C-alpha cells in the first residue's frame, strides 16, 4: 500500500508539472508583452524558480522519506540609487516537504531553512579602482570544479548533502584594484554556520570513525543525543575577516591568488560529553572553533588544457577542538571537438585530485570529534565527462572515488534547455562503499532525481 502511495505522489507531481510549470514556460516565451513590462524600467526585475524532486528507492536506517520535493523562487530587483550606488535585492521563498520553517532575512543562523529570506541584498558602489559592497552576499573565490579549499567565506546549506548551496552572509567588502593585482577585504560581523542535515534525515551522519572508536573503548555502541549548538557570540572583536590578493597580469597567462581568513569554522566540530554513569549516552554539542586559514590558488592554460589548483592550511587556534591540516586540489580541463562529431558538438573532460594532510592532530584526550559530514575528501579523484549534443542538450557523468577507502559517488544525468526559460536536469545518483567510509555511510541514499529551473 505504501509503495502505491509513493507512486501516486510521484505521478501527481509529474501531472502538476505538466499542467502548470511547463505550459507557463512556453506561454511566457510566446507572449509579446510579458508580465514584467510595468516594472522593468525602474527595478529591472527578474525571477528564478527552481524545483527539485528526488526519489530514494532504498529504505534508509533513519526515518524514511522516500520522495522529497523542494525548491525556491528568487526574485531580483536592481535599482540605481544616488551617487553611483546600486542596490541589488534577491528575496527568496523556500519550499519543501520537510525542512522549511520561519523567516530569517539577513542572518540565517537557524537550523532550519527559512521559508522566506533575502538570498542577497547588496549596496554596491563601483569606482575606477575601488569597489565597495555592503550587505548580504554570496562570494565565489574558487577556481577548481569539484571542491574548493579557498572558497571559504560563505557557509553552506547541506541539509540535502548532495545538493549543497551557499548561504549569503552579511558583510562589508572592499576591493582595491591596482595595476597588476587586486586586493579584496571582507569583514563578516555575524557568524552564520552551515545548515546541517536534520538528525532524523537520510543525510544525517553516524560518524563512522567516532562510532568505531567508542565501541573499541567501551564495548558498546553509542547513543548520541544532540544537545544543540554553541554559536560564537557576535562581538565586534570577534568579527571574522577574509582577504584575497589576486593577479592575472603579474605573470602573463596565470591567474594567481593568495587568501587569508580569520574566523570560525562554519562546519563545526562535536563536543562529546560522556558520563560513565550514563553510558552509552553521549551528549553532543556542536561548537565552532576559531581558526586562521592561508590559501593559494592558480589557473593557467597551455595548448588545449586548462590547469588549476588550490591549497589551504587550516590553522586551528585551539587544538583541543580541532586539527591543523592542509587540504588541496589539482586538476585539468580538456575539451575535444573532433571525437564523434556526428553525435556531439564537444566532449569535455575534467579530472581532479583532492587530498588532505593532517599537520597536527587534536590534543590527546580531546573530547571533540569531526561531524560525520566533514572533510571526506582526503585522497579522492574527482571528475566529470560532459557530452554536449548541442547547445541545448548534454549528457554528463561525474564521480568521486576515494583511493584509501574505495567509497565512491557516481552521477549520471541529462541537461536539457527546453526553451529560453526552462531547463530540466534528470538523472541518477549512486553512492557505494563500506558503511564506515565517508560516502559509503550513505549507500542507502541512491536516488533518481529531476530538477527544473525556470528563469524570467
Amino acid at each position, binding site marked *: 500500500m505504501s509503495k502505491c502511495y509513493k507512486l501516486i505522489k510521484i505521478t501527481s507531481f509529474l501531472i502538476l508539472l505538466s499542467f502548470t510549470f511547463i505550459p507557463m514556460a512556453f506561454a511566457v516565451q510566446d507572449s509579446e508583452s510579458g508580465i514584467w513590462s510595468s516594472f522593468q524600467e525602474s527595478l529591472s526585475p527578474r525571477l528564478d524558480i527552481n524545483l527539485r524532486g528526488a526519489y530514494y528507492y532504498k529504505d534508509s536506517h533513519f526515518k524514511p522519506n522516500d520522495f522529497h520535493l523542494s525548491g525556491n523562487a528568487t526574485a531580483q530587483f536592481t535599482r540605481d540609487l544616488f551617487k553611483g550606488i546600486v542596490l541589488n535585492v534577491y528575496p527568496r521563498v523556500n519550499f519543501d516537504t520537510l525542512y522549511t520553517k520561519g523567516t530569517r532575512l539577513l542572518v540565517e543562523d537557524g537550523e532550519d531553512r527559512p521559508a522566506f529570506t533575502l538570498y542577497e541584498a547588496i549596496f*554596491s558602489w563601483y569606482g575606477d579602482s575601488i569597489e565597495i559592497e555592503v550587505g548580504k552576499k554570496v562570494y565565489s573565490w574558487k577556481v577548481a570544479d569539484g571542491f574548493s579549499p579557498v572558497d571559504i567565506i560563505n557557509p553552506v546549506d547541506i541539509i540535502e548533502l548532495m545538493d549543497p548551496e551557499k548561504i549569503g552572509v552579511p558583510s562589508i567588502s572592499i576591493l582595491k*584594484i591596482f595595476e597588476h593585482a587586486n586586493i579584496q577585504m571582507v569583514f563578516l560581523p555575524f557568524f552564520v554556520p552551515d545548515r546541517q542535515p536534520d538528525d532524523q534525515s537520510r543525510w544525517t551522519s553516524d560518524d563512522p570513525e567516532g562510532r568505531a572508536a567508542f565501541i573499541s573503548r567501551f564495548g558498546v555502541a553509542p547513543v548520541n543525543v544532540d544537545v544543540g549548538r554553541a554559536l560564537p557570540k557576535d562581538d565586534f572583536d570577534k568579527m571574522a575577516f577574509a582577504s584575497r590578493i589576486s593577479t592575472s597580469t603579474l605573470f602573463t597567462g596565470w*591567474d594567481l591568488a593568495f587568501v587569508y581568513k580569520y574566523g570560525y569554522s562554519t562546519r563545526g566540530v562535536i563536543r562529546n560529553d560522556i558520563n560513565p554513569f550514563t553510558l552509552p549516552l553521549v551528549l553532543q554539542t556542536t561548537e565552532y572553533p576559531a581558526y586562521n586559514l592561508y590559501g593559494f590558488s592558480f*589557473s593557467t*592554460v597551455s595548448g588545449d588544457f586548462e590547469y588549476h589548483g588550490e591549497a589551504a592550511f587550516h590553522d586551528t587556534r585551539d587544538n583541543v577542538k580541532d586539527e591543523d591540516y592542509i587540504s588541496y586540489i589539482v586538476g585539468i580541463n580538456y*575539451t575535444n571537438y573532433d571525437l564523434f562529431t556526428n553525435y556531439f558538438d564537444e566532449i569535455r573532460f575534467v579530472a581532479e585530485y583532492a587530498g588532505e594532510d593532517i599537520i597536527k592532530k587534536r590534543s590527546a584526550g580531546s573530547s571533540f570529534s569531526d561531524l560525520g559530514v566533514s572533510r571526506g575528501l582526503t585522497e579522492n579523484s574527482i571528475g566529470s565527462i560532459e557530452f554536449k549534443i548541442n547547445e541545448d542538450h548534454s549528457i554528463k557523468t561525474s564521480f568521486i572515488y576515494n583511493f584509501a577507502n574505495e567509497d565512491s559517488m557516481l552521477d549520471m544525468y541529462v541537461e536539457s*534547455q527546453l526553451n529560453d526559460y526552462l531547463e530540466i536536469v534528470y538523472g541518477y545518483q549512486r553512492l557505494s562503499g563500506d558503511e564506515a567510509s565517508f560516502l559509503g555511510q550513505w549507500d542507502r541514499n541512491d536516488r533518481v532525481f529531476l530538477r527544473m529551473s525556470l*528563469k524570467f
Partner: protein
Amino acid sequence: MFIRIFLMIMAVCMWVSPIMAEELTGKSIIEEQQKRHQSDNEFSDVALTLINRKGKEKNQNMVIYLLKKDGKSKTLIQYHAPANIRGVGLLTWEQDKKKEDDQWLYMSASRSTKRIAGGSKKNQFMGTDMAFEDMRPENTDVHEYTLIEESSIFSKKCWKIESIPTTKKEIKDSGYGKRIMWIDQSNYFTLKIDYFDHHDRHIKTSVFEDIRPMTGKLFRSFKVTWSRIRQKTHTVMIYKKIDLDTVHKVVTFTQNYMKRPVK
C-alpha cells in the same frame, strides 16, 4: 583641343600614379583596411537571431565592449538576454603574437570564472554560427594574403583576397585552412567572407550588410549574417547601436567587472 586632352590625361595620371606607384597586394589591402576601420574604443548593442536547420529561431541580446591600448585589444562580450544566459560573459585580452590570448568565461548561474584553453577558439561561441576566433581582431602576422582578382559582389567592385594561416600554431588552432574575402574597393570594407576547413571544404559564409559611415573613413556593418553550410544554420546579428566615441575604462575589461549583476 589637343592641349585639353593632354591636360586631362596628365590629371588622371597624377591621380592614379600614387596608387600605382605602391603595388597593390592582398596584405596592403588588409593593412589599409585595418588602418581605416579599426577603432580604439567601441561599444555595440547587438540582437542575435539564431536559426536552426528547421527554421526555428532563437533570440539573444548581447553587448560588446572593445578597448585597444598599447597595440593590444581587450574585448568583453556580455549576454543580457535571454534569461537563462543573462550575465554570461567572455573576456579576451590580446597578447603578443607568439603568446596565447587570455580568455575567461564567466558563468552567471554558478558565479564562476574559468580560463579557456586556446584550442577552443575554433569552437562555436554560445551556440551561434560564429567561432571564438571570428570575434578576434585580424592578425596579419600569422596569415598570408593573396590578391586573387578584381571582382564584383552585391553590385560593388571588390578585391577578392585569399587568406591562409602561415604559422604552425595558427594552422593547428584555427578551424580555417583558408578564407576568401571580398573587400569593397570604395571603402575597403569587407562585404563577404567564405571560410574553408583544412580539407578545403567550404564550411561557412559571413555577409556584411547595412554598411554605414561612422567617422572619417571608418565604416561599420549594422547587419552581419553567418551561415554554416553543412549544418544549414544561420546567425543574424543586428547592431542596434554602435558607439565609437565613449572611452572605456580599463576596469571594464576585468574578471571583477564580469561578476557585476547585469540589469
